[in-house]
């Protein structure tokens, strides 16, 4: 065991509800596509704010609307966010998002554009955001256990090096974090195909197993209902170039990230975990959508393994990118936070690789910027369940 495992403390921000975050964003949330201009307007005027423009939020209904609310409010509620301004064309849904964020105790304001126009709204929101940024800047980082964080993982542009090296490294890391009392998230329902039995068998209770199995089966039925299968989408062209031949092979590599722990819960899209330990969340396997769902559920740091070189980021959650593919590390070095290619050269073992990843998580959680943050990869990709009204 390396020295990194004595260094389990991070410097984070405690929020009003006791949750620990690792960033101190003032978030400008557009409720809908029409409000993107005002939100990005505020972002360009006020240093230290971040807007999350997106193409949705109008005429959504039922579970799709509820997921959109959960996603937008979840970003405001995330402990990496100090305070938030919500801007929407109409006041009522805008206020709904703000009310959900306010339940965490953090400062939030809701502004409707109708009756004021963009310019007055931008001015009002900017004056509010200026004060929020100054207040947030007073907040000091303090020492907490790494295990106080919610951490998520996903792989992308995977290849066989993911299944051989980077995903099993996350598996070892996840086992250690479970032992320390972390709250951990793992998803990617479509990319379990061929290996779903392993995840089902790791559910802590028969009821959870049934809940997970229904999520998986519902997804397979949805594909069948479209008269399709995912051949051609899964594995992707990038996966195939990297040597992955079938969805089963990709899935067996994917599940290495889960480690040996039992799952304590099976969560719906963007549902905030309530149990410490390893949680399954129903998600898409598309990188930005999946990380967006984890961020909305309160993840403070994301661990992303890549084979062929996925460059994804997130607006509020640092995405730590790990690769064991020497070609990717050589050709796309600016995107990779941790090079563990030595695993494939037999220079060190999985425990050592997991140790290096753990140390990098501690540094990242304490303020070290990730590649995605420096390169401004801030993909915000809400999951849409079906067509709007």
């Amino acid at each position, binding site marked *: 065991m390396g020295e990194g495992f004595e260094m389990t403390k991070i410097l984070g921000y405690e929020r009003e509800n006791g949750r620990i975050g690792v960033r101190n964003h003032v978030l400008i949330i557009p409720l809908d596509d029409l409000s993107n201009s005002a939100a990005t307007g505020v972002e360009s005027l006020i240093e230290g704010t971040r807007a999350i423009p997106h193409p949705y939020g109008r005429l959504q209904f039922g579970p799709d609307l509820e997921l959109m609310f959960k996603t937008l409010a979840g970003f405001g509620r995330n402990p990496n966010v100090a305070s938030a301004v919500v801007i929407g064309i109409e006041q009522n849904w805008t206020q709904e998002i703000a009310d959900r964020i306010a339940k965490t105790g953090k400062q939030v304001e809701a502004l409707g554009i109708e009756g004021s126009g963009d310019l007055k709204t931008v001015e009002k929101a900017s004056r509010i955001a200026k004060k929020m940024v100054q207040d947030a800047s007073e907040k000091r980082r303090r020492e907490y256990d790494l295990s106080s964080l919610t951490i998520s993982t996903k792989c992308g542009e995977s290849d066989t090096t993911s299944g051989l090296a980077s995903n099993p490294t996350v598996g070892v890391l996840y086992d250690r974090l479970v032992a320390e009392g972390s709250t951990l998230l793992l998803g990617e329902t479509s990319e379990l195909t061929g290996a779903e039995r392993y995840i089902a068998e790791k559910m802590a209770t028969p009821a959870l197993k049934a809940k997970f199995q229904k999520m998986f089966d519902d997804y397979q039925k949805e594909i069948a209902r479209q008269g399709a299968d*995912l051949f051609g989408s899964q594995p992707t062209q990038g996966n195939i170039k990297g*040597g992955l031949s079938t969805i*089963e092979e990709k899935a*067996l*590599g994917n599940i290495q990230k889960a480690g040996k722990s039992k799952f304590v819960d099976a969560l719906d899209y963007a549902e905030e975990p309530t149990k410490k330990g390893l949680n399954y969340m129903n998600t898409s396997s598309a990188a930005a959508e999946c990380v967006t769902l984890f961020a909305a559920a309160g993840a403070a740091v994301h661990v992303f393994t890549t084979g062929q070189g996925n460059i994804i980021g997130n607006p509020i959650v640092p995405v730590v990118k790990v690769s064991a593919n020497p070609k990717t590390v050589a050709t796309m070095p600016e995107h990779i936070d941790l090079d563990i290619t030595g695993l494939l*050269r037999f220079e060190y073992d999985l425990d050592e690789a997991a140790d290096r990843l753990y140390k990098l998580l501690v540094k990242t959680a304490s303020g070290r910027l990730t590649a995605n943050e420096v390169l401004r990869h801030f993909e915000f990709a809400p999951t849409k369940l079906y067509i709007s009204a």
Partner: protein
Amino acid sequence: MEKKFLVHAKQDSVGVAVADIDSGEEVEGTLMDSGGKVSLRSQDAVPLGHKIALAAIKKGEKVVEYGEPIGVATENIQKGAHVHVHNISSLRWGKASR
């Protein structure tokens, strides 16, 4: 002989190249579960991350990696051959394209 591939489990019919393998090269692999060694001569060039057949696989037989079927052989595959989308196919998806 160079260590150029890894094998996830002892039941596996394929190994995974961890460095580019030339056609006709004598290469050694390591079993990840036991640390045991296997060696063979490659029949094709196998790029890093791609699979090499550890034994002959007949058309219609399941291809095993991680101790699990990852697909089915769509043609006879020689020991030492490159194993990929040209000679194996998913058991789950893509049946219509076969």
